[in-house]
C-alpha cells in the first residue's frame, strides 16, 4: 500500500519565523505572506528537518496512506 510522509504545519501555532525554510532540502516549505508556513506536498519528502528546527513545535510529520491520515 502506497504511504508517504509529509510535513504538516499547525497554522495556529506557527510564528512564521522562517527557520524551517532554511533547513528544507527541497525548498518545499515557505512562509505564506508572513502569516504561517505552508508545505508544498508535491515537493515535500517528509524528512523531518523542519520539524526538528521549528522553535514553536508547530510542525509534525504525518503519513498519508491512500488518502487516510495516520499521525
Amino acid at each position: 500500500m502506497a504511504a508517504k510522509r509529509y510535513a504538516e504545519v499547525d497554522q495556529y501555532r506557527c510564528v512564521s519565523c522562517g527557520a524551517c525554510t532554511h533547513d528544507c532540502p527541497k525548498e518545499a516549505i515557505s512562509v505564506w505572506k508572513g502569516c504561517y508556513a505552508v508545505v508544498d506536498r508535491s515537493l515535500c519528502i517528509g524528512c523531518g528537518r523542519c520539524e526538528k528546527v521549528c522553535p514553536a513545535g508547530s510542525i509534525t510529520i504525518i503519513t498519508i496512506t491512500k488518502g487516510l491520515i495516520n499521525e
Partner: protein
Amino acid sequence: MNKQKHWYDYFWIWTIVYFVLGFFNILFAWLGMFDFMVPLLFAIFGGNKFFCNHMCGRSQLLTVIPQIPQQIHKSRVKKWKEKGGKGEMPRQRFSLCRNKPTPAWMPSKAFRYGFLIFFLTMFGNIVYQTWRVFGGATLRQSIKLFWTFRVPWGWAYTAGSAPDWAAQYAFGFYSLMLTSALIGLILMVLFKPRTWCSFCPMGTMTQLICRLRHRGESPESNG
C-alpha cells in the same frame, strides 16, 4: 545544505558589531532603531515577514553559534579519517544547544501577546525616561539588564558629546537590546536555536500585521 548565499545572510556579524560598538560608545545604540523599524516597514508596506525570515541578525546569530561545535567536530572527524581512521572516532566534545522542544506555553498566543505588551510598556518607559532627562532630570550612565539589574556603563559615554536625552535613550535602548539578546542566548542553549523567535515581540507584532492585512485570504485562494 549548499543553498545560495545572499548578502543579507551575514547580518549576524552586524549583531556582534552592534554590541561591541555600544560597549565603547553608547550612542551607537541608536543604530538599533533599524532593527526596530525595518521589520515593521516590511510588514506594513510589504505585508510579509522578509526581515524575520531572511534578514534578522539576531536569529542568524542564534543559528550560527550552535553550528560552531558541530563544525569543529566535523573537521576533527575529517582529520581522523585522513589519518587512516585508526582507533575510536572522535566524539563531539561540547554542544551549545540541547535541541530540546520549546515549552508549549512559550509560543502560545497568551504568552506572546503578554510579552509583547510587557516589552512595549518597557519601551514606553525608556521613552518616558528620555523625556524626563530632556526636561532637566539627571542622566543615568548605566544600563539595566533583565529590567532589574543596574550595570555601570559610564565609560561608554563622554559627557557633552551628545544631548543628555539622546544618551539616556541610547542607554535604555542598549539595555533592551542586550537583555533580549541574552534571553535569546540562554533559550538557545536550553531549547532550540531559535526558541527566542517563538515569542520575539518584533515577530509577534509583524505577524499580527501580516495576518490582519491578509485576513480572509488563503494560500489556496490566490497562491
